[in-house]
């Protein structure tokens, strides 16, 4: 007696919507159990999470603040995942974007006006992320090195590079011995809507990037090639698609978008380079789930990005309002995500219970 999973032939539109909704409900029920074990009313606690992320103006602005980098990174990941190129290194591409922009901002910021330095920093951010992203693509196509390993390992290298910079050569003179660079000059810092941490530039940039990527993936020759590589490598080879050029290109775009998210976090939120975990809060990893929940479609990534941002914000909030330890938030996020991924699996696969069949011999 054993279970066997069989891919479903096709799924209906109703199921496509129902599956994530049901898995979300199941996940929330499981989280509710955890709250119950902590002696809290699960309905109240869960309500509190969504109330604090979507139910007030302040909560919504915070959710959007977190959603913007997730959408940027997630859109780029959707592109590489379409090609079945598993880029687990968005976190490092984001960091490199921040590093490049920090250099530009600190070096040229003081002598250039805002309308010049800000685009330059975003350009540098894109470049930093793109260059870092192209490394694993080149390694894979030229040397056959598995991209899961190389992108994952490059995360550590990038994180150590950032630490080295802020503890060593770039440590700010104005930071009392703390491992931060000096603050960017005022004209290199983005204007924010008053009372929020949302910059209009990023508010436009993230959806624009998602829309462009959707067009790129589904409406251009390049996007078609990417999808063919993902669907059927042999067919792609037979059709004469240049794997090297295409892989470099989609990793440049994906890494570049992560780099833009790094620039955004730097200029809108932090104003200086600091420790990697302060700088990014794991956006590069969360965005992997964002991309999958969004069905590898950047337009849907906007929805899943907002949703996951809401969970993060709500998680922070219940720590305060319910007095839960900080790690409860991680437990919460983990459980929800596992259920969503399981839902995705059950949507694509049918589970059969197979009775042991008599064998010969």
């Amino acid at each position, binding site marked *: 007696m054993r279970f066997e999973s069989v891919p479903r032939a096709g799924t209906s539109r109703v199921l496509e919507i129902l599956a994530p909704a049901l898995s979300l409900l199941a996940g929330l029920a499981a989280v509710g159990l955890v709250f119950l074990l902590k002696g809290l009313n699960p309905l109240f606690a869960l309500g509190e999470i969504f109330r604090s992320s979507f139910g007030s103006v302040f909560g919504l602005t915070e959710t959007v603040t977190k959603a913007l980098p997730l959408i940027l990174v997630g859109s780029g990941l959707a592109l590489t995942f379409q090609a079945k190129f598993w880029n687990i290194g968005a976190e490092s591409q984001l960091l490199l974007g921040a590093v490049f922009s920090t250099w530009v901002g600190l070096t040229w910021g003081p002598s250039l006006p805002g309308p010049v330095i800000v685009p330059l920093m975003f350009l540098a951010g894109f470049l930093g992320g793109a260059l870092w992203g192209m490394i694993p693509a080149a390694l894979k196509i030229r040397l056959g090195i598995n991209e899961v390993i190389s992108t994952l390992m490059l995360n550590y290298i990038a994180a150590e590079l950032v630490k080295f910079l802020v503890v060593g050569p770039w440590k700010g003179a104005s930071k009392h011995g703390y491992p931060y660079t000096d603050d960017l000059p005022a004209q290199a810092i983005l204007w924010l809507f008053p009372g929020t941490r949302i910059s209009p530039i990023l508010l436009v940039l993230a959806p624009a990037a998602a829309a462009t990527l959707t067009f790129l993936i589904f409406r251009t020759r390049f996007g078609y090639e990417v999808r063919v590589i993902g669907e059927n490598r042999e067919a792609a080879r037979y059709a004469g698609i240049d794997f090297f050029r295409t892989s470099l290109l989609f990793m440049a775009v994906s890494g570049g978008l992560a780099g833009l998210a790094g620039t955004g976090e730097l200029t809108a939120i932090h104003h200086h380079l600091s420790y990697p975990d302060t700088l990014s809060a794991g956006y590069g990893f969360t965005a992997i789930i964002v991309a999958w929940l969004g069905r590898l479609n950047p337009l849907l990534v906007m929805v899943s990005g907002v949703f996951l941002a*809401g969970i993060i914000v709500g998680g922070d909030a219940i720590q*305060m*309002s319910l007095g839960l330890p*900080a790690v409860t938030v991680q437990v919460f996020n983990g459980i929800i995500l596992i259920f969503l991924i399981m839902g995705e699996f059950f949507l694509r696969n049918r589970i059969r219970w197979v009775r042991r069949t008599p064998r010969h011999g």
Partner: protein
Amino acid sequence: MKKIARILFFAITVLAAFGLVLSCGGKKEAGAQAAAEKKVKAGFVYIGPAGDYGWTYAHEQGRQFVVKEFPWLETVSVESVPEGDAVRFIDRLVQEQKVDVVFTTSFGYIDDTVKAAEKYKDTMFFHCSGFKRAPNLGNYMGDMYQIYYLNGLMAGALTKSDKIGYVAAFPIPELFRHMNAFALGVKETNPKARVHVKWIYAWYGPDKAREAAEALVAEGCDTLAFTEDTPTVIEVAQEHTAKGKTIRSFSHYSPMQQYGKDSVVSGQLTDWGVLYKKILQDYRDGKLTDLSNYDLLWFMKEGAVELGGTWTDRINPAYVEPLKAVKVKSAAFGEIPVYDLVMKRYDQMKQGREVFDPFTGPIKDQKGNIVIPAGQIASIPHIFLEMMYQVDNFATPLPQQK
């Protein structure tokens, strides 16, 4: 594309409806709260987890103390808030939790607290261990440099290898003040001994602290002190001691002697409860209208800090006899057992800085420059803001500075 647009629309509608329903529920609740009796609500922002058993744990004990003390007090706390990312937590404390008072309990929150105080004029902010003030932003600190000095006296007397290890968090004035006071104590009882430092660039970093402590032991240090928020260094010292290689250690912030019964000699303790009690009572009584000059800086005299690895023993009973056996020549007291020297200095400092202070000149930095002139007691700004040097019995050079 139509299909996608429809799914998008559906998802947004659901989210919006969900939010709307919940927000209505929220408003009702807030109204009910306002109708209840008027209370003071205080928010605490912590750098580590409340269970770190060090710095944050000590603040958490202080918070629990005032909660018991004042029936009119309500508190909210948030832990593991990274330095440089405190704004979003402070925003939420003020905007959503509607606190009247915010305590930010790590030096690294300094700029975020200043920004928050500018933004929220009606909220009172108290930043622990900082120096920037505003009409609604004050400072408080229970500082233990005097206790560090007492521990240094004991460390110098007990070391056999004349190498004393120090695991340090960040190269900032607070650390140099504490490490220098400790080193001056070492120098008084053992001029030959040198202090070796490992910087870990983290307040809460048990893994890094363990690595640093092991490295110091491997380099020949037989006595360890530290500034990091967990009992890790003590655990390392105790492990070596249990295996037969005695490594002495000094507890930090919370009573950590239980983690190193044979290893811990003494330590520094802070009672944040008395400070929080004073601040909140004054706030409640309406005494705090302008915080521009508010700097509640308490030492041994005010009872904010105490000597010991537990709240009951100032010195681990296992080390009382060894300390009585070591005699040193003291300029002030002649030939005296170190145990008695510690107690005499303790009594002096308990009376106030003017009676005795470890930072009394002449004191030289590592380069041989006189940093505190002969006969002078260092000013508070000097030891709290300007101290970015190590005194002359450190073996390790300063970390890279700009």
